[in-house]
């Protein structure tokens, strides 16, 4: 099972594009935290990959520990992840994460200009410096920390600079996505295109120098063609099928974006509760909506490479989890040819780093080993 535990909805940042409700100070009780873990354990799956989510989960580090410690008492395997804004780390937290194999993803939008524009603190200050001070610790305990970067119409012009800056800090894995709920227009999309082209040049340069840069914008699109990875994704995401989000109330939602403030008004999207399990009829109704055929996309050459299966992006763009969003379509039509151009260039050069990354399933492990040896 893939699960996200929203141990708290509280957060010390107020990012402009955040989909996670109004940051109410609402958290799981220790009892709900334990019961949530027990519910996951009952899945019977060989392995449960559980992401500690928020708000920011480190706002309630006590609940993080509650979940992890309780899981240890159960007869099930847990793999722990966490998504964090990176501002609340302490040495104690770093030590705990390392000791318990909790790997985390950092939400970071770029250099100080991009970050401070969209990711402000509760009192309206930029959050960049709060994150930057923790970078050495993050890379120490999790050298392959993944970066989640959201690009908005206001930061579109800085995307390439931002990725290059973060790359320069020592991060190697990037998951960049546009704010699908943002106020995009043709002008800002053109700006984004220019930035992605600039980013393509940086990506090519890094590969030619043998510098590792793993960037979903190109890698995922290329791999979806090269490896036929679309077969895993083209029907729909796993939201509501084998992936769930557990909210502070104990309600179960299909994915993180549906939790919102976890109020009765949000219950429309809930598909169960940890006390009663999944509501099979609500779950089926959700899956039927999210996985219905995308007739608008019939015959599209990008079928299987486009993320029209993402119920969250669809929901943000159209209000309907099953309806492909117009902006997403426009974005994919812009991005995929750019990714192919990059792939064709590096293939023509028989770039060994790129070939290894794209075609070797074990690349992440072997790459890490290589880096560790270099570091000695």
């Amino acid at each position, binding site marked *: 099972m893939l699960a996200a535990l929203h141990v708290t909805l509280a957060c010390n940042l107020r990012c402009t594009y955040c989909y996670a409700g109004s940051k109410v100070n609402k958290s799981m009780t220790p009892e709900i935290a334990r019961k949530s873990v027990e519910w996951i354990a009952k899945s019977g799956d060989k392995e449960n990959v559980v992401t500690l989510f928020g708000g920011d989960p480190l706002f309630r580090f006590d609940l993080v520990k509650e979940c992890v410690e309780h899981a240890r008492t159960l007869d099930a395997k847990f793999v722990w992840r966490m998504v964090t804004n990176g501002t609340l780390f302490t040495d104690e937290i770093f030590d705990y994460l390392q000791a318990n194999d909790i790997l985390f993803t950092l939400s970071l939008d770029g250099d100080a200009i991009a970050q401070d524009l969209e990711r402000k603190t509760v009192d309206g200050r930029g959050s960049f410096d709060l994150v930057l001070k923790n970078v050495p610790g993050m890379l120490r305990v999790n050298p392959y920390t993944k970066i989640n970067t959201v690009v908005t119409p206001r930061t579109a012009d800085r995307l390439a600079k931002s990725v290059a800056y973060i790359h320069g800090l020592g991060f190697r894995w990037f998951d960049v996505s546009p704010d699908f709920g943002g106020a995009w227009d043709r002008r800002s999309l053109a700006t984004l295109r220019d930035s992605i082209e600039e980013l393509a040049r940086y990506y090519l340069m890094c590969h030619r120098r043998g510098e590792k840069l793993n960037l*979903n914008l190109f890698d995922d699109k290329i791999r979806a063609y090269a490896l036929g990875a679309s077969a895993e994704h083209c029907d729909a995401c796993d939201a509501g099928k084998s992936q769930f989000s557990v909210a502070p109330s104990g309600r179960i939602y299909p994915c993180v974006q549906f939790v919102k403030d976890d109020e009765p008004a949000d219950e429309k999207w809930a598909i169960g509760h940890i006390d009663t399990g999944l509501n099979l009829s609500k779950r089926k109704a959700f899956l039927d909506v999210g996985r219905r055929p995308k007739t608008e996309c019939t015959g599209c050459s990008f079928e299987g490479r486009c993320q029209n299966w993402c119920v969250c992006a669809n929901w943000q763009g159209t209000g309907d989890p099953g309806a492909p969003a117009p902006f997403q379509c426009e974005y994919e039509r812009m991005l995929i040819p750019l990714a192919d151009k990059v792939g*064709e260039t590096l293939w023509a050069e028989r770039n060994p780093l790129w070939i290894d990354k794209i075609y070797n399933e074990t690349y992440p492990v072997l790459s890490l080993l290589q880096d560790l040896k270099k570091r000695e």
Partner: protein
Amino acid sequence: MSEFNVRPVNGYRAPRYPAAPAVGESPQPPFIANRLSKLAPLALILAPMTASASPATPVVTVDAPPRESGPSIPAAIPQAAIDALVAIADQDAPPVMQGKIAAPSRCFSEAEVAAAVKDVLADLGIKTEAATITRDGVKMKLAALRGDSAVAVTELLSKPAQEELALLRARGEMKVLMLTARELEYETYAGGTGGRLPTREIVLRRLRAELESFLK
């Protein structure tokens, strides 16, 4: 109201880098070997025969990372595995290059690998014996003796056997060349077959080259 529309793209040309054909099409390229994960990896091992039991060192088994939301999941590498790998690097032992790599059996069988190994060894003047030996739980089907060493082709079928092998390597007792059919294929492919799928002969030729280099 969005100024964008959903509209299908028609007639987009295929990218000019290798791709996997649809499942069921022939030939199967090496790149989709992950769908054949039930098949076992093959390994070539050069192991000193005189090795004795030595103090325990970390056992390394690196499973393929669980997937979260796409193929780029570096964060899935267990910390314990990282620690163990670092520990091995500290021992100045040969790097462990063991991942969950599947070997597409249609490309070549264990017997074919064994035959290729035997040919190369003969070319190098190394006497070979067809034998099945078991060493510390690892079953080796072809043994080629050279001084105090053995070259064996082994099919690592069980997890305990893989762990045993990892332990032996961790102790630094054996030099291991671990190649899989898949690795050979994609390396050969990347090495310039003009975008064509590598033939069996090309793959086996590459195997010979790797082995020759390894034994020098």
